[in-house]
């Protein structure tokens, strides 16, 4: 079977699914609950050293000199390295390698890594860090992205062609001028999205060991083992085959562990230098500096609508604050425009997005990469346009639903689409028709919709090899082991693999093992990002299972001397469909197959079909399948304090098919929580000195159980023609509508439009006062 073959969407062997659609407990669930799971920081190796980083106290400075002699003289210090020891630049995107594991010549934000110490314990390493003497020449620092747009000297990255501009993307589809001319209402407004970070509970940690023959093993809390292997081996000058990267159990990532990070290079280098295993665990504060969180964006949207509700065109101008490095910024810049073109059909579109560098912790991908911010702006504007033409906002969204089997204005292929049903679900569950606009002052309902990718056909570095690969091992014991490069970061990717194996081969879950994210053992997979895992790894798993099943069925058929078509395998029993009493267990079938074929095994792969618009960047954001979401948020606004009480979020999400409804609902609830909390509590910002304003979980507050709204997950299944059994993503899409739906709900509650995040009580009160003053004025004028 070729990698791009379709596997069908129904139950593979018979009328009903046996494992798919069941809420099986997560593969690692019990081990996490009991504490048995091994995270990176649980790894202790004999003779292990501990490493710590010296970080820059300046936001922007040139390094004049570094003197490590006093630190090296401290007893218990084994090695100290600086930028000179790891001079090769890296970056997750091959065209924008602008990072060094340790600063070479320059530091670009407070917290930038300068030197690393390996010592017998953490306290000795910390003490040594304070003994390193660095002389800096402080440079002008940039905290305001608008300054970076126009001022380029001093450049944050002196080699960069466009000064302090990190990336600019301008794309136009259709004719905006006539689009706005033909509209009945055109609105143009500014929106501001603040920054936010992932705040995964597990801080980053890495451990490395170098063997006597020069093989390096690196355990890291990464969500993309493959890119870590590529970049670390390149910077260290090691062949990829000599660097083994293993992801232990992960305590959350949300995009914040997608880049290769300083600590991975540093522990590997220090292990090679000292000949001892080396560990580095970051503090919570250091995790805030590593950041790669959601980009702050300043957005201007102009949208036209006809009285019948049809959108005529959308124009966006966006300034993106990238922080100090490129990270995934090239993709972010594209995504800020490319991913807005559904679930609504608008025939004309233009966007102009510019990402700039500033001297702040670097931004990167956070759940809903690059598209949560534009979605925030657009869905609020859509609400305002609905009001302007006097149409129910859900109805306007229905009128513009792009539908299935179609193309977006920027040339993206849309196949399955359950958006209309998502709207129906939230409308019904929230009792929208009888409640919206009719609730007492202070209480309101708001709606928003969105679309997101299930992986993209853009593999970060161009190549023709599979994007997902998996290998199966099976033997006479009855056990099937899957080796997958897919990273289980808590989202359930290994559980999905297991469900598919159970379904395809009729196995009990306890007769399946999944070995994941170990580059020595598992075939290459591009890892956990852009919501690609269920779709791509799932398809690769089906591919491998079907090849294996064929071998087994063939062997059993030969033994029974019947046609292979008559052999049923899929329920734990293997039998002759025309002579039911001829039956054996699956394990016995494996035995027969092993005898017939010799040692058994199979591989599976997936690659996207050719997708995307025929223009530069047209493949960025092109996905084999899109997921769709609608939210209705119910809010209470305290008009005395301006404080927001989140009551309910109804989340309807089209995930294609829910392979495991419990996991899908978990992702939907988690996404909605993460999104709405960003709007109310979080603000990842630096203060006037360029210091992170509060790099701790006390000063960067996440909602507690008391602050969390009731989350109602409403699963919609559109059955995608190309997804595994029809499945699409559920991990990121369901976040998007939360923020604009909240803003729209606040409007319904108290009549103020909040277009700037976060929705602090001070801002709410100010807007309430402005509205009261305006109401008074207009009332006065009409008398």
């Amino acid at each position, binding site marked *: 079977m070729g990698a791009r073959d379709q596997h069908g969407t129904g139950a593979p062997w018979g009328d009903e699914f046996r494992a798919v659609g069941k809420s099986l407990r997560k593969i690692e669930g019990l081990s996490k609950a009991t504490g048995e799971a091994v995270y990176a920081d649980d790894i202790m190796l004999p003779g292990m050293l501990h490493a710590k980083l010296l970080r820059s106290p300046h936001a922007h400075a040139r390094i004049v000199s570094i003197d490590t002699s006093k630190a090296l003289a401290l007893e218990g210090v084994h090695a100290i390295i600086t930028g000179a020891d790891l001079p090769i630049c890296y970056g997750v995107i091959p065209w924008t390698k602008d990072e060094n594991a340790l600063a070479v010549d320059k530091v670009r934000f407070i917290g930038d890594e300068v030197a690393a110490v390996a010592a017998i314990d953490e*306290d000795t390493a910390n003490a040594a860090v304070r003994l390193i003497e660095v002389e800096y020449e402080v440079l002008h620092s940039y905290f305001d992205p608008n300054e970076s747009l126009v001022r380029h000297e001093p450049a944050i990255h002196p080699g960069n062609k466009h000064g302090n501009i990190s990336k600019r993307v301008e794309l136009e589809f259709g004719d905006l001028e006539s689009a706005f001319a033909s509209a009945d209402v055109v609105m143009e407004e500014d929106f501001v999205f603040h920054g936010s970070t992932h705040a995964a509970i597990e801080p980053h940690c890495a451990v490395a060991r170098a063997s006597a023959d020069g093989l390096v093993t690196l355990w890291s809390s990464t969500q993309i083992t493959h890119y870590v292997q590529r970049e670390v081996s390149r910077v260290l000058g090691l062949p990829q085959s000599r660097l083994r990267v293993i992801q232990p159990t992960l305590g959350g990532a949300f995009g914040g562990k997608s880049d290769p990070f300083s600590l991975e290079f540093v522990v590997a280098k220090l292990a090679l230098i000292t000949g001892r295993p080396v560990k580095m665990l970051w503090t919570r504060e250091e995790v805030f500096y590593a950041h790669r969180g959601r980009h702050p964006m300043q957005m201007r949207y102009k949208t036209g609508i006809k009285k019948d509700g049809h959108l005529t065109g959308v124009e966006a101008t966006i300034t993106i604050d990238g922080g100090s490095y490129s990270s995934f910024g090239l993709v972010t810049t594209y995504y800020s425009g490319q991913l807005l073109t559904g679930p609504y059909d608008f025939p004309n579109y233009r966007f102009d997005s510019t990402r700039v560098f500033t001297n702040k912790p670097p931004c990167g991908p956070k759940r809903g990469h690059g598209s949560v911010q534009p979605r925030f702006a657009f869905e609020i504007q859509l609400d305002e346009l609905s009001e302007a033409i006097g149409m129910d906002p859900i109805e306007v969204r229905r009128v513009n639903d792009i539908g299935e089997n179609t193309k977006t204005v920027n040339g993206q292929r849309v196949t399955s689409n359950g958006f209309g049903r998502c709207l129906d679900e939230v409308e019904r569950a929230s009792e929208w028709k009888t409640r919206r606009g009719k609730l007492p002052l202070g209480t309101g309902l708001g709606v928003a919709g969105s679309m997101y990718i299930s992986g993209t056909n853009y593999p970060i570095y161009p190549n023709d090899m599979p994007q997902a690969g998996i290998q199966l091992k099976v033997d006479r014991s009855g056990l099937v082991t899957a080796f997958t490069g897919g990273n289980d970061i808590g989202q359930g990717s290994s559980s999905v693999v297991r469900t598919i194996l159970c379904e395809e081969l009729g196995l009990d879950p306890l007769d399946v093992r999944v070995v994941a994210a170990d580059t020595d053992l598992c075939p290459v997979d591009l890892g956990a990002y852009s919501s690609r895992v269920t779709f791509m790894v799932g398809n690769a798993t089906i591919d491998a299972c079907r090849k294996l099943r064929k071998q087994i069925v063939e062997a059993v058929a030969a033994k029974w001397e019947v046609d292979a078509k008559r052999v049923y395998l899929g329920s734990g029993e293997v039998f002759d469909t025309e002579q039911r009493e001829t039956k054996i267990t699956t394990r016995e079938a494996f035995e027969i197959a092993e005898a017939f074929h010799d040692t058994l095994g199979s591989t599976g792969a997936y690659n996207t079909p050719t997708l995307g618009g025929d223009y530069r960047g047209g493949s960025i954001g092109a996905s084999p399948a899109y997921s769709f979401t609608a939210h209705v948020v119910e809010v209470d606004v305290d008009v005395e304090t301006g404080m927001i009480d989140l009551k309910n979020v109804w989340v309807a999400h089209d995930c294609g098919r829910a392979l495991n409804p419990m996991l899908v609902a978990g992702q939907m609830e988690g996404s909605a929580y993460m999104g709405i909390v960003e709007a109310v509590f979080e603000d990842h910002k630096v203060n006037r000195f360029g210091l992170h304003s509060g790099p701790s979980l006390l000063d960067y507050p996440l909602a*507690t159980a008391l602050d969390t709204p009731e989350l109602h997950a409403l699963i919609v299944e559109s059955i995608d023609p190309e997804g595994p059994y029809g499945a699409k993503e559920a991990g990121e899409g369901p976040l998007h509508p939360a923020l604009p739906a909240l803003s729209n709900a606040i409007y319904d509650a108290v009549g103020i439009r909040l277009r700037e995040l976060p929705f602090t009580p001070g801002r709410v009160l100010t807007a309430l006062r402005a509205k009261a003053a305006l109401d008074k004025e207009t009332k006065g004028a009409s008398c």
Partner: protein
Amino acid sequence: MLRLPQFTLERPTTIEEAIQLVADANGRGRFLAGGTDLIPNLKHEFIEADVVVALGGIEALRGIEVTAEGGLSIGPLTSLVDIAESADVQRIAPALAQAVGTIAGPQHRQMGTIGGNVMLDTRCQWINQSHFWRSSLGFCLKKDGSACHVVEGGKRCVAAASNDSAPALATLAATLDFQKAPTEYGNGKRTLAFDELFKADGAWNKKVSADELLTRIHIPATPVGHKGGYAKLRMRGSIDFPLLGVAARLDVDGEGVIEHADIVVIALQARPLRVRKASALLVGAKLGAASYDDALAAVMVAAYEQCHPLPNIPGDHEWRQEMVPIYVKRALAAAIA
């Protein structure tokens, strides 16, 4: 995780041993109760200690007793959860029970003690940070530096007293017993009125020094018509320190006429602040009558004019000032409820 600096841990079982151990450390000794404030501050290195004296083994420091006069005698080592849930505290000192029930999160209330809360250090966004962070800033007046980042050119630290129990204890006219190692000048014991404990310096906002052990908290009996309430402004429903905390006391007669009133606010500057005019405005008003509504409106204005939150703790200080009258109203409502 941030590392805890090295120190010697002592675990005495008597008050006398404890105070001697701190005295012997020559200014570099600290008492440790629940540790929920001391440990983070040691990790952040703006408190330094060579000797940490854990109080957990001293039974004499525990317990809640109702005195013969009908007041309360509370051991400082009593956990916050025990205070909040005590029927005696709820009855005799309702504002204290309410305030303590809002401190931090459930785990902190299990570990944290009332004595530790009384003795809590002040808080400021420029000080409650790691050593690295503070060194990048160039430090500040409170520790290792020469400038204040809250009040430009300021010569005195204005970090905020942030202990939720303080305004409640102030309205309850609590007294505090302290004891330090005896010297040739005296036995080391003294009793302070709660109001006398604090001074207007955020670097160390107590009139006692770090070697004086709080041994008992006394709350005089409250009259039959005593009402007390606490209202706390914070972003989340749990965990957060107060952005503003208001304790209110009303003692009313049989007719509902207010005989005594008191309002104290926390999380402004280095010490709790009494709303001076509260008593004058509220006394004589009758609950449920128009006279009360008028008095309430006047008290809200008076509080707004007297309280000036600073950008010391996180949160928009202008908004916090606007919240002063609202939380005064809510504290009074909590008292009456």
